[in-house]
């Protein structure tokens, strides 16, 4: 589960992940607009003193490649690879920004996010949308900043002026009435002038140099983003932008900047292997104590004990903090030298999987499990036979027959559900085969679901089999279950489904469509082409369902064709 960030939230990166090889993905889109997403590597005064650390499409990596631009992938508009322990010491902050290319303003953007992926999973996500912005043309989305350790902050602060305001913010003085793209570097250590690429053409209004603001002394008091405000325009930062509350809304899980659990704070000693009773000869000298070369790719000496296999270079890819050379008896990996995330013991380890109590009849415990409290509402639940995984309380499970007519219809149409009736007082947990579950609450409206995708529903709902006619369908017609009334139905899908609004051109494979709102009208569109059908190389996509309906109708399609 990624941790959800909101504007103003921040956390140590070591609390998010132990990894230092991070992937940062940004999704920001808007109809008809394009964005330039870049990463500024700033010094201790929050200045872009070295323009080689302005990573953008024209300069896709920093000199030592600790910051690399990877391009669009996996749903992200832009992505970066950040190797924290290779970032040179003069860089104290990485600011991820998005600027509008062309006309437009930030309030037009679609919901987007900035996310951090490490160790194979997403560990943090800061989601934003257009309602948080107004007329800004550039926005600082999030920062990695070094305060004792590397931290991440969700910033979400915009600039009306676009890229030039952004550059001014980072670059200090833009040389007055100079050619736009050559601002001067006020800071020492600037290697090359002109960090603004010509492509960007920043018009550079003369700006009184803001006193280089301190990098916010208090780590916690970060609420207004720590950027040094250009002196003349403080309202830019405060007024229009901040719509969302800076304080975490109640209930949201705030990154607790509290005392980090032991293993995080101080670097775990990484001297791998073979210190123990060491039947394998003297302890490998190479390992984990290459203090000089933090990522010495080949340990120079081969530890004698290990012999055959070529040395894997220091086990945690680079020994990033394993600098403590040879404290004897430090068991390397291994020995539980401290609690894991959030403490030791069975209860602590399983804390994250605890049941979430709510006062509702239907509760989704996680994406694959729902809980129904039969005591509430007092009516029985019909569920697919065998879908109960656990229950508490006095619950009775009994066979629910379809009735004589139901059997006949079921046999004829294939729309038959093997149901059981759950009655009594207590909580029943339902799941089936790790499919994803979606409780849908009906309030007098209707939904059509294929019978095999129904997991459970309130007995108060009415259901009947509907027929979809059309030529070209194997068997002559398609059947589906229509549920109407007031109550909840749990639909299951194999994999993450897509929910499409019904438009004049909405088509779905009849094998993959799971459900649709029953106000939508279904038409079968089959592509009959003599030439196609004459060859064995048929596309296999000959029978499609087309949906028509008023706006507000939707269809649900799963990534699995039964």
């Amino acid at each position, binding site marked *: 589960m990624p941790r959800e960030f909101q504007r103003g939230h921040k956390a140590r990166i070591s609390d998010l*992940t*132990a990894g230092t*090889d*991070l*992937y940062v993905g940004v999704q920001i889109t808007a109809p008809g607009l394009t964005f330039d997403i870049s990463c500024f590597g700033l010094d201790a005064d929050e200045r872009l003193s070295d323009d080689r650390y302005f990573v953008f499409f024209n300069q896709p990596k920093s000199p030592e490649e600790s910051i*690399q631009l990877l391009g669009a992938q*996996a749903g992200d508009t832009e992505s970066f*690879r950040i190797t924290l322990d290779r970032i040179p010491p003069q860089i104290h902050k990485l600011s991820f920004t998005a600027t509008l290319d062309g006309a437009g303003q930030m309030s037009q953007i679609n919901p987007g996010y900035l996310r951090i992926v*490490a*160790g*194979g*999973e997403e560990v943090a996500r800061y989601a934003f949308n257009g309602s948080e912005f107004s007329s800004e043309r550039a926005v600082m989305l999030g920062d990695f900043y070094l305060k004792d350790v590397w931290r991440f902050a969700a910033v979400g602060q915009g600039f009306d002026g676009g890229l030039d305001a952004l550059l001014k913010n980072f670059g200090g003085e833009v040389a007055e009435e100079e050619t736009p793209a050559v601002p001067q570097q006020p800071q020492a250590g600037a290697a090359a002038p002109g960090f603004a690429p010509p492509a960007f053409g920043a018009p550079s209004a003369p700006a009184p140099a803001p006193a280089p603001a301190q990098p916010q002394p208090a780590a916690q008091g970060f609420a207004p983003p720590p950027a040094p405000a250009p002196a003349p325009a403080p309202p830019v930062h405060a007024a229009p932008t901040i719509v969302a509350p800076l304080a975490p809304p109640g209930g949201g899980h705030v990154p607790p900047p509290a005392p980090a659990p032991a293993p*995080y704070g101080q670097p775990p000693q990484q001297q*791998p*292997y*073979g*210190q123990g009773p060491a039947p*394998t000869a003297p302890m490998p000298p190479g390992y984990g104590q290459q203090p000089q070369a933090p990522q010495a790719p080949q340990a120079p000496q081969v530890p004698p004990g*290990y*012999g055959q*296999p070529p040395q*894997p270079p220091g*086990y*945690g890819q680079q*020994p990033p*903090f394993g600098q403590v050379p040879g404290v004897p008896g430090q*068991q*390397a*990996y*291994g020995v*539980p030298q401290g609690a*894991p995330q959030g403490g*030791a*013991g*069975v209860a*602590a*380890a*399983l804390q994250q999987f*605890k*049941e979430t109590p709510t006062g509702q009849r239907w509760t989704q415990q*996680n994406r*694959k*499990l729902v809980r129904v409290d039969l005591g509430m509402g007092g009516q029985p639940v019909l569920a697919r*036979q065998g*879908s*109960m*995984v*656990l*229950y*508490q309380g006095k*619950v009775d*499970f*009994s*066979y*629910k027959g379809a009735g004589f007519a139901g059997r006949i219809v079921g046999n004829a149409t294939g729309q038959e559900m093997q149901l059981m009736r759950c009655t009594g007082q207590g909580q029943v*947990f339902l*799941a*089936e*085969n*790790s499919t994803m579950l979606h409780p849908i609450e009906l309030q007098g409206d209707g939904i059509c679901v294929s019978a095999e995708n129904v997991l459970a529903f309130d007995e108060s709902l009415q259901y009947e089999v509907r027929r979809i006619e059309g030529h070209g369908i194997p068997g002559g017609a398609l059947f589906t279950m229509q549920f109407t009334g007031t109550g909840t139905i749990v639909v299951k899908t194999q994999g993450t489904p897509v929910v499409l609004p019904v438009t004049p051109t909405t088509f779905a494979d009849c094998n993959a469509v799971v459900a649709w709102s029953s106000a939508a009208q279904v038409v079968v569109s089959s592509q009959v082409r003599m030439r196609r059908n004459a060859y064995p190389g048929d596309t296999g996509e000959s029978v499609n369902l087309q949906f028509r309906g008023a706006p507000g109708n939707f269809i649900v399609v799963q990534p699995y064709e039964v």
Partner: protein
Amino acid sequence: MNQPFAGYAPAPVTARMENHGNHMLKVALQTGNDLLARVGSMVAYEGFVQYEPNPPAVRQIARDWMTGEGAPLMKCSGDGLLYLADYGANVVVINLNGDGISVNATNLLAFDAHLTWGVERVKGLAKFAGQGLWNTKISGQGWVALTSRGKPIVVDCGGGEDETYVDPDALVAWSPNLKVKGKRSFKAQSLIGRGSGEAYQMAFSGQGIVVVQPSEDSTDRLRVRG
């Protein structure tokens, strides 16, 4: 070349067992601190690791595990990083720290060899539920990794006065101090093909937790593959 895979590199080791993603377990092995893991669960390793299937001690303890064909455990020893997985099942890592846990045999992925463990048959139930239910009781100071098909749920049994009933196919683990008994919700009408599909449950009572997976697929995939 490897850029699209950025973010999937292993994180530096901070503990003996860690998750890599939700579905993979990373174990830092060192000499003298061996690991018992399910046979066939290894997906990758770095370093110098040796595997010994069916070590005699294990065979003795688990001699009639499952169908009695021998224990599906191997002993991993050496120095290195070991990656384990079970067909994409979620992996849950637990630092026991003196606690104990009772794990369904098919849901056990790996545990430290120095832990106290034993195999026992769940009474009263084995005769009815297809494959019979064997569980491994583990306790001590060390690490255990479980698998679960889908994200598991943990239910506290002490919550109500009633017992907690679990479908044996969905059961993953429970606190060993819970009282277990089998329950048959078996009615005459079940015999004529009108059962509810929920014929057997396990009833837990007492103070402790039960871990349940959102799937009733309890087949042992590692074992099926052989």
